Each structure stands twice: as structure tokens, then as C-alpha cells.
């Protein structure tokens, strides 16, 4: 048979023998346009559907056993809390010195029979250093030459050693307060912190040590907590802190207030530690009025979108809702709560899901419109804070040391000045915190059972990494396909020396990326210059960057024209795909938001002068290209977001500088993404858009 039909079936025989996967690949590449439209649409739709796909949270680690024991936090502890609150307010009113409260707290800590010491430090501003991304900066040695007396911060720290424990692990409680301007809620939160501490000092079930840090947040609570943690994990040898601080400094200013410290002796400044940290809780009380119930807000986002283990949030939520009857809130973006298009979408989804349920009752995609709107708003805030890469509170400092931490912010139903309201409120919050600590205390291993990569769409609903990766994967899937298609089409058209032409395109792409990298490092140089305002910094930055870009283009002009826009686009798309994939590992949210902007732009961009058949098609292409180019430019995107989410006020160019400053001072990977991946991609797209369509490159 083979011999007979040899001649006419040779083509078919070849085809049938090639592998299926290769044939499929070829098919995809051949229909790249359709594939990219379908994938983009599917990716964005799947992303919008995430609130529908969210699962209910559950406590994954069995050892936690939240709420299995009756809380021992009683009215006795409430009295303790009240007494400390009153003491703080009285003393705070009498003297406004920074160390008065720390001294008082230490007295209280010693009174319950716990160890205690003062932690002293000088706050330093976080400077931009290009080489310090992803590394915890430990520049302990560059102390200011002559620190002034007022710049020291004094924290009181108490340690309970677990009676029968081996002291290997510890649970940290942090209560931030402002020593200069102590508010009533600050005093109440210190009261709660102390009452829990005094309760834990005589319980029998303690297996891990307890450390209570009353953090003076005069210069920001993150700074204080971070500095304490740095000393905890660093070589802060006994006596070092006391050496740094000249005692004379304190004697001059507050000779009488330090008498007590002097009496207690030298040891009160010796830094003490207590084992490896298992978890940390930051407690805060905010005196804002709630509608119907006392409420608890949970903040969990740490730097670069890192989250604590979901179990920690779960136990706090479980105890708050099912034991103490608090309302649990997590951050949500108000714009989405009010936007009518979200509501419309929610109603549509509600209809679809009810229809789907009628078809098959086993399907569990059941969502009401209100749920969807709230889920979207919460998810948006979750994504936003993770993408920003800036921690939402001092719990972020713990994540740098692989410690799971959350901030629990309590707000009462009505004013705390009312005695009864305050007692009930203290009882609830105290029991909740006791329960959380007891659960963590039960834990034999560190948190590892539950998720670390997730978004929250409600306090009890989460979207895990397995689900949210799918829309992202679908979204960036067309990039390699389109790159391959462009490449092959270009190679087909020019046969002479086209095989190495892509190297020229790669050179262009590489140099633009290099330019972007230099731009990202420019602030380090600019900061050395005596430029006054943020706006002058920003304009200088922009000017220098544009100058460099122009120089790059002078060098590249010939080769960028030579290689043709299709090859340039194909290499650019490959670079963008690699960059997005890498970024999705580092900080998924940034990659997701970036992909929604970059992917359509990369796929759609075409030279403006390119001939197209219809006038309408050309106009559509032009406008969409222009719109995407404007939206994907980072400063423009920031402006649009600002106006959209209702931030009023005039927009200043200095805002961009300040914004960038926030990003790099928190070591946010978003800064690197924006300048290393997003910006060069945008520049290249602009380049393609303005491409002078001459020579062999344009192909109808």
C-alpha cells in the first residue's frame, strides 16, 4: 500500500507522522488572533468571577482547637484594665514626657511577677538603597553622631516564662500607643494588653512564653516594632542599648522620673529574649462609632503581598463571630460598594447562578448580588494592598522574620467613656484575645497547615492560589502564541537574512530594559542632590530619564528601524511574558493588575501608519491603541485611579515622587516591576505605535 501510493500521499504521510502536540501548537499559532481574543476575554471574565469561586474558610490545623476551652478572662481582669487605663490617663495628663507611660507599664508588669525591661532605640528614616531590595537592612552601626535627647523611644517589654514550658517558643503581643499624644483609645488598648498579660501570668496551661511589647509609636508603630524585632534577631547584646543611650541625657531632662529606673538598677535596660516566635498579635482600639455591634477589623497584609497563615485569621474570625459576637470586618474599597456596574454585574451573576442551580442542584455557585458586590470590594482591597507591597500595619514587621502576625483592631459600639459599655467591650475583646493566644499555645508545630497565598473576599471566604492562578494563566497564555505567530510570519516574508534579524530586535529590547533599570536607580543619585520639593525631584527624574531614553534612541535608531516592527513586537512580548511570570511568583497581585494592562496593550499594538483595509477598523485600532497606551503608562494609571476612587484635590507632579518613595522605602517589589518590566514594555509599545512603516516590515 505504501509503495503504491507513495507519490501522492507523501505530504499526508508526513503530516500524520508529526506529533500531536506539535500539530496543536502549530494550530494555535496559526489562529493566534482568535486565541488571544478568547484567552484575554476568558481571563478577565474568570478574574471578575473570583468572588463567586471563593470558598468558605475552615480551620485546617486540628491542634488549634479554638474555643474549646472556657475563657478565664473575667471582670477581675476588666478591673485591672480599667485601673491601668485611668493611671495612664492621669499620669499622661500630668506629664507629657515620653517615658512616663513606659515606666508605669513596667511597674505594672513587675507587679504581676513577670520579667520586664526597657527597649530603647533611635528611630532612623528608611533610606533608598538600590542594593537593599529583598534584604532586611541591618545597618545598625551607622548611628547618628550626636542623637538628641528627645529622639529616643522607650518601650516597655514584659515577658512571662511559661511555668512548665521549655522556653523554646513565644507568642508576642503588641499594643502600640503614642506617648506624646496618648488618646483614650490608646490607654484602653494598653489596658487590654495588660489585663491579658496579667491573666496569662497565672494560668496553668501556658506552654509558650508570652512577650508583651508596649510599643511607643511616636515615630510610627512599624518603626518601633521593626526596631524591636531587629534587636530580637540581631546582635543586641546585653548592655548595648544602654550604652547607646547616654544616661545623662535622661537625667538632665527628667531627673525625677528616672529615679525609679535608677533604683531598679542597671538590668532594666538589658535586652531579654524568649525563644522563637510562633505568632504575634497587634492589638489596637479605635474609638470610632459602629452601627450596631462592637466590631473587629483584621489587617494582615505584610510587605510584598505576603500574608500570614490563613489559620491565624480563621481562629480570630471564628472566636470573634461564634464566641464573642463581634462583627468582623476586613478592608474593602468603597468605590466598588457603590459602583452601579458592579451591582449590575452582581445581579446578572445572581440570575445566572440561580439558572445554573436549577439545571443542576449540585453546583454550588450560589451568590446574591449584595454578596457579590461586597466580595468584589473586599477582593479589590485585598489585591490592592497586596499589590502595593506596603504592610497595612506593624504586623508587617513580623513577616520579615517569618512570623505570622495580624493586627486586631477593635472598635466599640458606642463611646468608651460609658462605664458599662467599656466593661462589656473589654470583656469581649479580652476573651477573644485569650482564645486566640490559647489556640496558638496549643499549636505544637508552627503554622503550616493552611494557606499562605490567598485573597480574602469576606472575613470567612477566601480564594486560594489554585483558583486565582487560572485567570492569570489564561490571561498571559496568548503572549507566547502571538510572539511565535509574529515571528514565524516575519520569517516567512523575508527570506534573505531574516534568521538573525531577531537579534537586532532583541538588542533594542535589551537596551530599553537597561535604560529602565538605570531609571529605577536614578533616585539614589537624585537624593544626593539638594533638590527641595518632591515636584522638583519628580521633574528632575523624568527629565533625566527622558534624556537617557533619547540617547538610547539615537544609538538604536537604525537597528530599530531595520529589524521591522513585527520582530520587535514579538521579542517585546516574550520579554513581557517572562517578566509577568516572574512577577507573579514574587507578588501575584502586582502581576495580575499589570497583566490586565500590559497584555491587551502588547497584543493590540500596531504602528499607527500601517495600512489597513477599512477606515472604521483603522480608527478602532488607533483609538484602542491610544487608549491602552495612555492607561498603561504608570503615572497616568495612577492619576486615573486617583480620580476614579474619589481622591479629590489638585494633582501635583510631586505626588509621583512621593508615591515612588513610599514604594522603595518599603522595599516593595512593585517598584521594581513598574520600572523594570512595565515601563520598558510601555516604551516599546509606544515605539511600535509610532513606527515609521517603511521597508519590508509592513505586510498586508
Amino acid at each position, binding site marked *: 500500500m505504501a509503495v503504491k501510493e507513495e507519490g501522492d500521499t507523501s505530504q499526508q504521510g508526513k503530516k500524520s507522522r508529526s506529533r500531536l502536540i506539535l500539530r496543536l501548537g502549530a494550530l494555535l499559532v496559526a489562529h493566534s488572533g482568535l486565541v488571544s481574543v478568547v484567552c484575554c476575554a476568558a481571563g478577565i471574565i474568570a478574574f471578575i468571577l473570583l468572588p463567586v469561586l471563593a470558598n468558605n474558610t475552615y480551620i485546617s490545623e486540628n491542634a488549634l482547637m479554638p474555643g474549646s476551652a472556657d475563657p478565664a478572662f473575667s471582670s477581675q481582669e476588666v478591673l485591672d484594665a480599667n485601673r491601668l487605663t485611668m493611671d495612664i490617663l492621669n499620669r499622661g495628663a500630668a506629664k507629657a514626657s515620653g517615658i512616663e507611660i513606659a515606666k508605669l507599664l513596667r511597674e*505594672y508588669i513587675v507587679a504581676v511577677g513577670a520579667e520586664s525591661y526597657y527597649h530603647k532605640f533611635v528611630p532612623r528614616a528608611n533610606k533608598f538603597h538600590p542594593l537593599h531590595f529583598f534584604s532586611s537592612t541591618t545597618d545598625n552601626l551607622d548611628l547618628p553622631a550626636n542623637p538628641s535627647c528627645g529622639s529616643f523611644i522607650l518601650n516597655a517589654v514584659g515577658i512571662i516564662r511559661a511555668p512548665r514550658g521549655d522556653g523554646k517558643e513565644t507568642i508576642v503581643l503588641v499594643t502600640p500607643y503614642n506617648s506624646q499624644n496618648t488618646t483614650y483609645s490608646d490607654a484602653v488598648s494598653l489596658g487590654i494588653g495588660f489585663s491579658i498579660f496579667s491573666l496569662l501570668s497565672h494560668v496553668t496551661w501556658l506552654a509558650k512564653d508570652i512577650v508583651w511589647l508596649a510599643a511607643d509609636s511616636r515615630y510610627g508603630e512599624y518603626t518601633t516594632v521593626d526596631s524591636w524585632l531587629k534587636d530580637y534577631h540581631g546582635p543586641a547584646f546585653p548592655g548595648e542599648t544602654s550604652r547607646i543611650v547616654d544616661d545623662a541625657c535622661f537625667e538632665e531632662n527628667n531627673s525625677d522620673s528616672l529615679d525609679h529606673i535608677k533604683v531598679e538598677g542597671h538590668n532594666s535596660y538589658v535586652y531579654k529574649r524568649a525563644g522563637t516566635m510562633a505568632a504575634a498579635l497587634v492589638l489596637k482600639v479605635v474609638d470610632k462609632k459602629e452601627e450596631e455591634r462592637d466590631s473587629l477589623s483584621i489587617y494582615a497584609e505584610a510587605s510584598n503581598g505576603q500574608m500570614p497563615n490563613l489559620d491565624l485569621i480563621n481562629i480570630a474570625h471564628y472566636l470573634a463571630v461564634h464566641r464573642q459576637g463581634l462583627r468582623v470586618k476586613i478592608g474593602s474599597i468603597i468605590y466598588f460598594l457603590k459602583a452601579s456596574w458592579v451591582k449590575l454585574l452582581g445581579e446578572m451573576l445572581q440570575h445566572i447562578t440561580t439558572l445554573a442551580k436549577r439545571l443542576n442542584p449540585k453546583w454550588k455557585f450560589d451568590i446574591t448580588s449584595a454578596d457579590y458586590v461586597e466580595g468584589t470590594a473586599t477582593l479589590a482591597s485585598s489585591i490592592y494592598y497586596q499589590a502595593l507591597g506596603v504592610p497595612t500595619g506593624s504586623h508587617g514587621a513580623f513577616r520579615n522574620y517569618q512570623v505570622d502576625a495580624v493586627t486586631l483592631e477593635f472598635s466599640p459600639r458606642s463611646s468608651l467613656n460609658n462605664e458599662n459599655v467599656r466593661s462589656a467591650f473589654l470583656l469581649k475583646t479580652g476573651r477573644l484575645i485569650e482564645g486566640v493566644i490559647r489556640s496558638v499555645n496549643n499549636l505544637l508545630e508552627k503554622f503550616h497547615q493552611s494557606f499562605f497565598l490567598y485573597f480574602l473576599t469576606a472575613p470567612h471566604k477566601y480564594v486560594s492560589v489554585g483558583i486565582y492562578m487560572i485567570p492569570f494563566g489564561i490571561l498571559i497564555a496568548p503572549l507566547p502564541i502571538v510572539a511565535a505567530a509574529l515571528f514565524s510570519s516575519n520569517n516567512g516574508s523575508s527570506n534573505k537574512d531574516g534568521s538573525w534579524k531577531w537579534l537586532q530586535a532583541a538588542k533594542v529590547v535589551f537596551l530599553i530594559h537597561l535604560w529602565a533599570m538605570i531609571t529605577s536607580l536614578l533616585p539614589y543619585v537624585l537624593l544626593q542632590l539638594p533638590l527641595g520639593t518632591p515636584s522638583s525631584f519628580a521633574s528632575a527624574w523624568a527629565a533625566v530619564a527622558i534624556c537617557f531614553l533619547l540617547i538610547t534612541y539615537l544609538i538604536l535608531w537604525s537597528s530599530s528601524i531595520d529589524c521591522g516592527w513585527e520582530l520587535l513586537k514579538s521579542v517585546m512580548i516574550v520579554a513581557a511574558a517572562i517578566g509577568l511570570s516572574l512577577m507573579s511568583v514574587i507578588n501575584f497581585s502586582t502581576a495580575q493588575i499589570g497583566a490586565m494592562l500590559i497584555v491587551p496593550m502588547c497584543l493590540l499594538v500596531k504602528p499607527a501608519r500601517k495600512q489597513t483595509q477599512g477606515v472604521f477598523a483603522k480608527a478602532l485600532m488607533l483609538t484602542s491603541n491610544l487608549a491602552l497606551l495612555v492607561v498603561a503608562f504608570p503615572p497616568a494609571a495612577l492619576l486615573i485611579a486617583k480620580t476614579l476612587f474619589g481622591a479629590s484635590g489638585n494633582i501635583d507632579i510631586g505626588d509621583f515622587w512621593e508615591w515612588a518613595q513610599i514604594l522603595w522605602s518599603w522595599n516593595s517589589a512593585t517598584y521594581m516591576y513598574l520600572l523594570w518590566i512595565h515601563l520598558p514594555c510601555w516604551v516599546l509599545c509606544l515605539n511600535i505605535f509610532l513606527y515609521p512603516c517603511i521597508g519590508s516590515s509592513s505586510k498586508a
Partner: protein
Amino acid sequence: MAALCRRFTGFHFLLVLVSLSISSLVFGDWIGDDEGEQFTEELLLKPLPDRKVLAHFHFQSTAHPSPDSGHHHHLFPKAIAQLVQKFQIRDLELSFTQGRWNYENWGGSDPISSTNAKPPGVELWATFNVPVVEIDTTWKNLTHALSGLFCSSINFLESSTSYTTPSFVFGLNVSNIRYGALPREAVCTENLTPWLKLLPCRDKAGLATLLDRPSIYKGYYHSQKLRLTSTKLSGIILEQTLTIVLQPNIQRNSAHSLLDGAIQPSWSISSMFKRNLTGSCVLARTSRILVELEKNIVSKLEELGHGGSWSNSLLDLSPNPFRVIKEVNPFPEESNSILFEYVNSKEYEPLDVGIKWKLPFVWSSPHAPFHASRFLMGSGTERGSIAISLQSTKSDEYFRSKSNECRMQAVVFQVVPWYVKVYYHTLQIFIDQKLQNLSDVIEKIRVTPSEDKKLPGTLELVLGYPCTVQSVALTLDFDKGFLHIHEYPPDANQGFDIPSALVTFPNLHSSRIYIGDDSSVHSPLLLKFQEKNVVLSYTEVLLVPFTTPDFSMPYNVITFTCTVLALYFGSLLNVLRRRIGEEERLMRSKDATKRGLIPLIVSKITSKLRGMPRSKPLLIFAVVLSVLFHYIVN
């Protein structure tokens, strides 16, 4: 193992009963004989500054070397005698500890703390009388024997990764010593029961009746110790001590009760142990209770004008003691601690020793000159550092006695498991926060580097520095090793333990001298106090977080391997069933050029890409695919 032990317990109990009755009947007159076996029981009670009470039980059994008696003993536990005989033990110390000794509040330089403050978990060291080559085998067998005897996992010390040979830390410069510690071993009643079984009266009579399990395990520190010394001259001496720190019941009115200078809680034996003490163990040669008042209390008493009285305006000791024993120390101007002795002999009337405090009073325990602590530095799962710091406690007694030129010696003994890879060359020593030249500070050093899966790393170091130094700190960098999945212990996600380091101060001794001739007192406990014990302190156990694999990983690996195998066999079959001759003929008939397999496939594909013959799109596609694949896999 517990079940096994319980069965043995029952059997043993019978034996003990039988032997008890026999011994009390037949050898009743023989017990007091100095030549034979002896048993003494003593209890030391001591109020501690942080409102707690220390109770130290001391039981001592001796068996004189008597070749005639052979394998038979009257009082001495046969199990121990056999152990000594079988393994040729010269010295052995085994301690089970729960909780941490608080060196700041409970004292750091008195005899109790220097001999009975132990690291959490199990610690065992022993010296043998056997040739050097047999020591390791003897040690392994000994760990198994002890493991069975005390119902615990001492047999984990059998592996060569868990024990070490210190050379000069224990003061004995011998090569036949072995040391091992299990910091994670939990200590409970199942370890206490076999320990009690070694006593001739068990806990049926005498001081051991006080050992009410709920009360003693509710304490803040619990350390049961077994110390064996065996010499040709004196025979076998078995000391069993139980050191517990208890909190007397106090009415907790408010957290502020201490701030207001509240009175120390009053306590008595019956209130602390929830048992009454009636009579002694009839087999015991002596049975006495001692109450110690520390010198800081005594100095206060002297200030108030009641020197050694037990009933005064500050406190009330009841009942009246049998004897008062005073300490003598080299500085006559200072006050000394006082011991009040009670003899436990009355059978019908319970001896309820107790202290009633009348005035609020705060004092402090004698500290060791330096407080040792240890901590981990750094974060992440790759590397870190261990830091040991010695902080001066400014205990003036020591400094007053010495001139300015005095030099302090500190011996640091640190055993590190092999998976914590310590780089000993990174040793840095800071004295008063200044980095020191190592050769200036180190007087003697011995390092045994760890060997993967074979040997733990051991560091022994003698530091010499002036007494006036405020703080000394040592740092050592380490890398965290990778382990095989089967090498992870249970609960691997908790992290790994580094056993306590031991810091000793060889030129400081915690010996005490008491007035009164020894013949009248004849208390093994007081003799113990008079020994020259080196002041030492154990540091905290450290928990090093490690990278742990996903323990479901084997499943993934299996599925992955199976996929690869399936693919492999699929293509192998494909190749085998292919008719190569046929294909070759086909190729020859076409004008197929001599190209390799890959270019052939590549050209086939690219020709299909809209008839374009080059291979670049495939390359790009493959690169992007592989990146995507890698990303998805991770």
C-alpha cells in the same frame, strides 16, 4: 513501653514487698550497721524570693563492696547494682527535668542550683571503667538499659549523632566520659514511678509519701536526678534527688498584690503537698527535714535583732526545730544562711513544718557572677548564628573579695547537632561590646567539628577575662543543613532543638561549711553541700526553624515518576513496533537529505507553519513554553 513497664511494676512491687518484709524481719538489727547497706532520706525546704518554695528531696543508698554478698542486696536496688556491674560504671548522672531553673530568682551560686539546676528534658553523662575501645558499645547498651528502667526514650542517645565526649568540661580530664542530652523528652509520672521503685520504701512510707503527683507536677520546676558513684573502696553510692519549685496557694486578689508589698505566702508541708508526713521509712538510717533561710533573710533577721531565732517578728517557723545548724563563711562580717533541722520520727503525729510570714519582706538569692543566656540571631531558613552571652550580675560578694586584677574563668560547653552546620572559624567574642582578639581571651579551646549523620559538633572553650567585665558575648555562624525526608523527627514543622549549653565558672565553688561536728549531724545532704562544686549554669534550649518539605511530597514524586516511566515505555514500544525497513525505503524513495532527527522534525513543523521552512518560531515557542512550564510546576 509504658505497658511493659507497668507490668514490670506490678511484679517488682511484689518483690519489693517480699524483700521489705524479709528485711524488716530478719535484718532488722542489721540496718544501722555501718559496714552494710545504708539508706537515708532528707528533705530541704527553702523559701524563694519570688513567693515560691523549693523542696529538695535527697535519698541516698549505699552498698559497700562486699564480695560475699554477691548478687544479693538488702536495701540497695538490685537493678542499679546490676547496671553498675554490667557496664562497669564509675560515675553516672541522669536527670529528667521539666521547666527551667530561674537563675535570677532562685539562686545561681548555692549548692542546690549548681548541682540540681538541669536543662529541660533528659541529660545523661557517665564514665566507665572499661577499655577505651569498648566505651561506645557500653554507652549504647547502657542507654537501652536505662531507657527500659525509666520508661523514657533515653535509647535515642544511642546514636553517635546524639552523644559526645567532652574533654575538660566536667573537670575530669578523661576520655571515658560520654555526654548526651534530649531536650525534647517530656517528663511525667511514668518516669517518676520507676525512680521511686528504687527506694526501699517506695512512696509508701517516709518522706516519699509527700510526693503527691498532682501537686508536684503543678510546680514551676521539676527535676528528678539519679547520681551513681562506684568505687572499689566505698562501693556504690546512689543518690536520688528530686528538686521541685512549688507555688504555695495564695489568694489572688488583684494583680497589684505584689506592688503593695504584700506578705510572702505562708506555707506548710501539708498545704503544699496536700499530704501529711507521718513517720519515716523504717529502713532509713536517718530521716530529717531541713529548712534553710538564705543569708539575705538572716541578715535582715540580724538587723531586727533576732539572730538565729525561728520565731520572731518577721516570720514564724513551726514546729520548733530539733537543731539549728549555722553556716560559716570566710567573711566574718557577713551573715550566713541557717538550717533548721527536724527529725522525722514520730509515727502518729504528722510533722507539718511550715513558715508563717508576718511582715512583707523582699530579698534576693545569691547570683552567679555572670548570668548566661543564649539566643539565635538572623532570620530565614538558610543560615543564622548562635549567640551566648554572659551578663554580669554584679553580685558584690564576689567582687568585694577580689582585687581588681582578678581574672574570671568561664568554660563554655556547647553540643550542636550535625544538621546545624556551625562554622567554628566564625567564632567572635565581644567583651563589653568590643570585638576581641581570640587569642587574648581564649585560654583553651577544643572543637570537634560535626560530621554529617555521624557526629555532633562540640565546642569546649575556656575564656579568661577580668572580673570587672560587664558582658561577654560569643557568636557562631551556622548554616542549616538539608535533611532526607526520613531524617525529620515527628513534628518537624516545629523546628529542631539545640541542647542547652553549659557554662561553668571553674574558679568559683558553691561549697558551704557548717558549724558542728559531722559525727553528730551525719547528713549526706549536708556533706553534699560541703563538697566543692563548681558554679555552673545551663542556658536555654534553642529551637531552630528548618526548611521542611511538604511531607505529601513522596506522593507527588511517585505520580511524577510514574508519568515519566509511562512516557518512556510508550515511546520505547513505539520505537520497537515500528517497521524501520519500511520507513527507510520510504525515505530513500523521496529525496530525503541526510539530516538528523531533530532538524527533520523541525523542518516538518516549520513547513507546516503556513509553509515556512525556518525553525525560529518553534524555538521561541519552546522557550516560552518551558518558562511557563517551569512556572506552573513551581
